[in-house]
């Protein structure tokens, strides 16, 4: 009796998030997956087949096929989009890590009384719309923008910089936008490290730089992994930044997806692109969970 009520109570607690995931993730995913197996049609909605009870479920399923997927692998545009997205996401993740690590380290080592303020400064950009911040970068990066004018005033360059509408602009945009997602987990893991560990390393003859690589960095790895995933995963599917800053030069899967949906109105193909993107992203997530489990097993 008492175990039954406690079982029931447990469901009250863990039920809602599962229901949430069911309705807002799993069911939409199956709708998109079904779409990706359909064919284009000039109709509303613009695909076929649509399910109707009169047809029966067997007939409906028999009309579904993997045609869109074979097409995706056959056309180099899509393969290149994926590869280019992965490449851009990978290098911008590395860049973000390189920029964020010293900042997170500085925050973790700052006097305790400063830390809330520094944390506030990291979070502050979120108070402005993401879109507006990317538009602001256009004003900075365009040939007659602030950056070129400033550098020309200083006499460092004589011609305006051609950064706008290049992959460089995309890198700048991604690093800027996702920096807080890297800094926060890094800071969280660096801040936990007992400062006497570094003193012990130095006391045992390790110079500060070696002590960093032997003690601080390995102990911050959970933060590094978490930060990299938080940047890498959304960066792969990023649409706004390559669209606004990258121009036509930059090939990214998010843009290709958008074009398929809204310009070509090929919903089934666009859905196939989305499903494949999800599969590509599941790999790093699984890797991350494996790593987390290992850390937990090590008992830290």
């Amino acid at each position, binding site marked *: 009796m008492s175990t039954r009520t406690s079982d029931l109570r447990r469901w009250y607690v863990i039920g809602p998030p599962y229901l949430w995931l069911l309705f807002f993730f799993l069911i939409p995913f199956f709708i998109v997956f079904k779409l990706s197996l359909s064919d284009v049609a000039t109709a509303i909605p613009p695909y076929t087949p649509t399910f109707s009870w009169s047809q029966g479920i067997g007939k409906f399923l028999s009309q579904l096929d993997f045609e869109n997927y074979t097409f995706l692998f056959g056309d180099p545009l899509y393969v290149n989009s994926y590869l280019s997205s992965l490449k851009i996401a990978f290098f911008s993740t590395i860049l973000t890590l390189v920029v964020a690590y010293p900042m997170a380290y500085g925050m973790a080592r700052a006097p305790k009384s400063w830390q809330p303020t520094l944390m506030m400064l990291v979070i502050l950009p979120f108070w402005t719309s993401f879109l507006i911040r990317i538009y602001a970068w256009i004003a900075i990066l365009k040939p007659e923008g602030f950056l070129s004018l400033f550098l020309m005033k200083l006499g460092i360059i004589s011609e305006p910089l051609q950064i706008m509408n290049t992959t460089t602009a995309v890198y700048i945009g991604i690093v800027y936008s996702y920096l807080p997602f890297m800094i926060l987990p890094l800071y969280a893991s660096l801040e936990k490290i*007992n400062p*006497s*560990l570094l*003193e*012990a*390393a*130095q*006391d*045992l*003859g*390790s*110079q500060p730089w*070696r002590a960093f690589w*032997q*003690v601080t960095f*390995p*102990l911050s790895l959970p933060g590094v992994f978490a930060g990299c995933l938080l940047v890498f995963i959304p960066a792969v599917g990023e649409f706004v930044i390559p669209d606004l800053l990258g121009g036509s030069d930059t090939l990214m899967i998010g843009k290709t997806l958008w074009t398929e949906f809204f310009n070509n109105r090929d919903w089934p193909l666009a859905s196939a692109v989305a499903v494949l993107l999800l599969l590509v992203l599941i790999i790093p997530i699984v890797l991350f969970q494996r790593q987390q489990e290992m850390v937990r097993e*090590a*008992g*830290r």
Partner: protein
Amino acid sequence: MDVATARDPKANTSSPQRAGPRTAAPQSGFAPWKNPDLPPIVRFEGITKRFDEFVAVNNVTLNIYEKEFFALLGPSGCGKSTLLRMLAGFERPTDGRIFVAGEDITDLPPYERPVNMMFQSYALFPHMTVERNIGFGLRQEGMPKDKIAERVDEAMGMLELRQFAKRKPNQLSGGQQQRVALARCIAKKPRIVLLDEPLGALDKKLRQQAQFELMRIQETTGTTFIIVTHDQEEAMTVASRIAVMEKGLLVQVATPGDIYENPKTRYIAGFIGDVNVFEGKVSKVSDGCIEIDANGGYKFKTKSTETVTVGQQVGLALRPEKIRIGLEKPTSDVNVIPGKVEDIGYLGSISHYHVRTAPGERVTALRANAAHTVEQAITWEDSVWLDWPVDAGVVLTG
């Protein structure tokens, strides 16, 4: 010249080592601080450390000799840890120099100093096994691998850690972690081992075991140990000499026996062991004796080399075991005071008698319960006489 001998004329008179469960040095005759020709292994010279306005360590000059087990004792915030951290290189002195084996190390970074520290938190590297933790210092020297393995094994053997070699620190108990921290410290065979409250996290029983282990390691390795502790019993047990610190100042440096028998100030007298202090004014100073007019009109007389002037306010410190308690009035008329037994603490081999004296002071006297020699048992509400010989008390001016 040692500060202890400079400040305290009694430190040089040979008082016997405290009888106790000592197994480590000093063996009888181990007293390098008495040899003025022997160079100290550590010398603090006029060390001052200020944090903003706060003076953590105030003009400390101190010599520590090879193979000593030296204790820095004092309450938290007295500057003892800061002094140790300056020797390790984690803090820079505001003033003064630090010498190790005659060499000025004041400006050396921690990783170039011939000292290793055991931290209060142990500071074991959580991502490394016991073995790798212990070998960490040796790997920094670029020692060949087989040599490292040998030295790590030696250290693990000494502290009975071999079966934990592959474990991570969080898979060990507190006592085991403490031994790993010590093993990591001695694996490098430093000239000086620094211990910052090394046993503070252990429970009482484990702490006593660990104290003897520390002494054993100190003796077998022949290393100089410097321990920081706030636990006076711990300092008395392990140390060859103790430096008592208070508010950044070095108050007294002496052997445990000397500190106990001849405390320099009321603070030290109260800090180490139980003590009764009678307040009074100096009435006469003559041939090595000081006479005191105590509160309540009693006259005390005690042997002392302390320089005092007639009329000066002083305290007379008496350890409970030095005070005789009896029902008959003693024949002597000095160092005698009547009182009433208020409380008796029976501890088997000894009893504590808490006596309220006529001036209203509460005095504790100890008496061994040697059954057949006691002429009359003393009990509650008995009127008793307390007395002590002239060499029992210590005059406190500070």
